[in-house]
């Protein structure tokens, strides 16, 4: 039995249940449907769901179990169909004038809703466990002190590699720092201008324009870095100043990533600035302060926690960003201060260790999972911190 037959039979059972259930319900009421506790449709749905859910449930559980104990799929499909038929039979037997079909259907739908809501939890559990498991295998082959504190990154697929994370972490933080140095002032001033100075007309044009930047896929920014910004920086800054001759550099990736982050900082800060009560502005302006003085000494202090949260969220985006650094930052792992040199990041190395022919037993491949969990923990920490700060701040005014 294969998947197609299984699904066809399951659909036949469910649709058949839908129709037969209705018919039997009408018959049970002796033709007068007012006699029934539940509407006729619910009797049909009860039978259909009673058939479909056990079938799909067996398929899901069996599919999961078969990856451990190697059940043949044909067995799972057969058991699933038997369960579905049994469910339909149960639904059929239950149909009676006083059967509370609606309550039964609603219980089953409720179950489906809960299952759907727990997909989010399952995803997180999946992320954490898959990475923890592989990271465990990595640390059984490679010492964790050398991974976290090693200063050379030199993977060698014949073995005997140096897999120190520090150069990657340095590249990540350096690029993120430059990106934030670009995005925070521009984004913050843009938010201030849009919320405090701009006329409604200017705001209605400029705000969507800036937010377009947030909708552009990162691969587009990556290509922009690769074909435009990189060569430009090399030809007009790095080479004339004699400080580097590589188009892919920390500066290239940082600048382009900064552009990507502008709408993040600006729209989050915009919301936060708008949430500062108007009475505080009025009070300050009424005392004779100019609008800029009001912003600097009244609005900013009030909005500061929220803005810090926004910046942290932007930082977490910068650290986890992949395509811009893959195309713009280069692949050489080095610890250097020169922003016009090519450096590499955690995400670039995850990509390069996991693409192509990979052998999932060697530390050179498994290290990607250790890098992944480092990245996950880092960004998760920043997100949680940011959410905490934003929430705490919101409670003050609402």
């Amino acid at each position: 039995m294969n998947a197609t037959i299984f699904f066809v039979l399951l659909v036949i059972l469910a649709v058949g249940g839908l129709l037969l259930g209705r018919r039997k319900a009408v018959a049970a009421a002796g033709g007068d449907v007012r006699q029934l506790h539940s509407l006729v449709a619910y009797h049909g749905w009860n039978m259909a769901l009673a058939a479909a859910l056990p079938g799909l449930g067996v398929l899901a559980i069996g599919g999961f179990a078969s990856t451990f104990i190697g059940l043949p799929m044909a067995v799972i499909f057969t058991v699933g169909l038997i369960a579905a038929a049994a469910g339909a039979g149960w639904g059929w037997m239950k149909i009676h004038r006083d059967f509370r079909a609606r309550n039964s259907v609603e219980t089953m739908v409720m179950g489906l809703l809960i299952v759907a809501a727990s997909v989010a939890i399952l995803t997180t559990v999946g992320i954490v466990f898959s990475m923890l498991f592989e990271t465990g295998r990595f640390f059984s082959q490679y010492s964790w002190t050398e991974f976290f504190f090693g200063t050379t990154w030199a993977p060698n697929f014949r073995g005997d590699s140096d897999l120190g994370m520090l150069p990657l972490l340095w590249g990540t933080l350096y690029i993120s720092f430059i990106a934030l140095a670009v995005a925070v002032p521009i984004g913050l001033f843009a938010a201030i201008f849009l919320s405090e100075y701009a006329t409604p007309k200017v705001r209605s044009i400029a705000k969507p324009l800036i937010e377009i930047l947030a909708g552009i896929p990162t691969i587009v920014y990556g290509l922009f870095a690769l074909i435009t910004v990189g060569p430009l920086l090399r030809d007009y800054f790095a080479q004339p100043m004699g400080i580097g001759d590589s188009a892919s550099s920390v500066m290239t990736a940082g600048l382009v990533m900064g552009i990507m982050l502008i709408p993040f900082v600006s729209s989050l800060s915009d919301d936060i600035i708008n949430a500062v009560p108007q009475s505080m502005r009025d009070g300050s302006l009424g005392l004779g302060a100019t609008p800029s003085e009001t912003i600097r000494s009244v609005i900013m202090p009030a909005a500061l926690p929220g803005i810090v949260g926004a910046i942290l969220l932007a930082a977490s985006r910068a650290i986890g960003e992949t395509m811009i650094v893959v195309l713009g930052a280069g692949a050489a792992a080095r610890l250097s201060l020169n922003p016009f040199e090519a450096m590499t990041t955690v995400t670039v190395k995850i990509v390069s260790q996991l693409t192509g022919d990979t052998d999932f037993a060697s530390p050179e491949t498994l290290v990607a999972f250790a890098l992944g969990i480092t990245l996950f923990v880092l960004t998760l920490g920043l997100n949680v911190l940011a959410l905490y700060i934003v929430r705490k701040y919101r409670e003050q005014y609402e």
Partner: protein
Amino acid sequence: MTDAALPTAASGPAAPAKKSLHVLDARTRKRNAAERRFRIYGGCAVGAGVVALILLLISILSSGLPAFQQTFLKAEIQLDAKVLDPAGDRDPAKIAKVLTFSYSPLIKASLTRLAEDLKARGAADVTPQMLADMVSGAANAKLRDYVIANPDQIGETVAFEFLTNARIDQYLKGKVTRESAALDSKVDVAQLDAADALIASGAMEQRFNWDFITAPDASENRPEAAGLGVALLGSLYMMLIVLCLALPIGVAASIYLEEFAKKNFWTDVIEVNISNLAAVPSIVFGILGLAIFINFMHLPNSAPIVGGLVLTLMTLPTIIIATRASLKAVPPSIRDAALGVGASKMQAIFHHVLPLAAPGILTGTIIGLAQALGETAPLLLIGMVAFVRDYPDALPGGLFEPATGLPVQVYNFTQRADPAFVERASGAIIVLLVFLVIMNLVAIVLRRRFERRW
């Protein structure tokens, strides 16, 4: 009275009337200047954002638009029956056995005629070999496909258009100059002269190239033949999966969390989870896909099903957040009214609240899909960077066959040595952006048309 104090102070004999409302004092001037500066900073910041956007678009458009134009060489090909159909019975199976390589002499013969024709018109010495070098390496295969599709044309002479190779194409687009050609082993200056002569004679022309959108990818040294067909199909399959999974799961999860969930530890955990998942770097989802779907569940590498599942997990938080916002926007009076006439809670939600929230849910879904369409990093990890030349089958079997996606194809193009691929990559980005613009416009129109203020 405070008002009375001012004139006395100003008109007092000790204080000469230095201050006037008409003359700003130094401090006020300074404060006003600071105000103006501050305002200008703000304006500059907004301007910088807009300028960055414009630069980005100009850069991509200027380098990508030429990819849609391609140079073709027109030649009359004599489809020699002796070569193509030795048996002479026009049996498609036998014609298909003729190797691609056997088509070369036919093309060569036609190019020889073209070269003589050019010489007769007084062009510089053009050798047939030179013309053959100018034609794309994909020409044989294209001619063969044509013959297999039209076996009745064998023995006839047909007008055929071949792609020229990337160097000639780039020369006519102004990217390859005579100086750079002199240093390039793949082209020589004489070929460029010949190309000029061919353009003048009308045998070579630039026109819109549909193959860029429909053809599959081509090998490393044939950038002129590389297309986006497989990538578009792969992206389409993945978007279908995302739509079919993320929309129902997302809506179901939101209904539970927004309407039914009691405030307890578990719902708190789910809430925190969803907001964190929305901010997890996309590459982490790629690691999840690789570890769970490929290494653990043994789904095939580089298949749209895996890509679709990974993108579904990534899109779920976006859809859940949008759906919850639009469920929240439906006023409680609607629910109360439904409950008041005897509907159960489930009926009130499915019959009344959900339809009213549908436009908002759809808008959120489209925006989530647009995000998923542009996502690259997770797809790199699940093997979708592979070089795929065969179109995946129709659904549902095609979900399990290798394919690429549009953004991954862009990455793929950028990793190749030949500079002509830069144009291809930018062209692919333009196709991607066109799709994104359409999706976002649909979302905006939906929102404008159906959004209700209660």
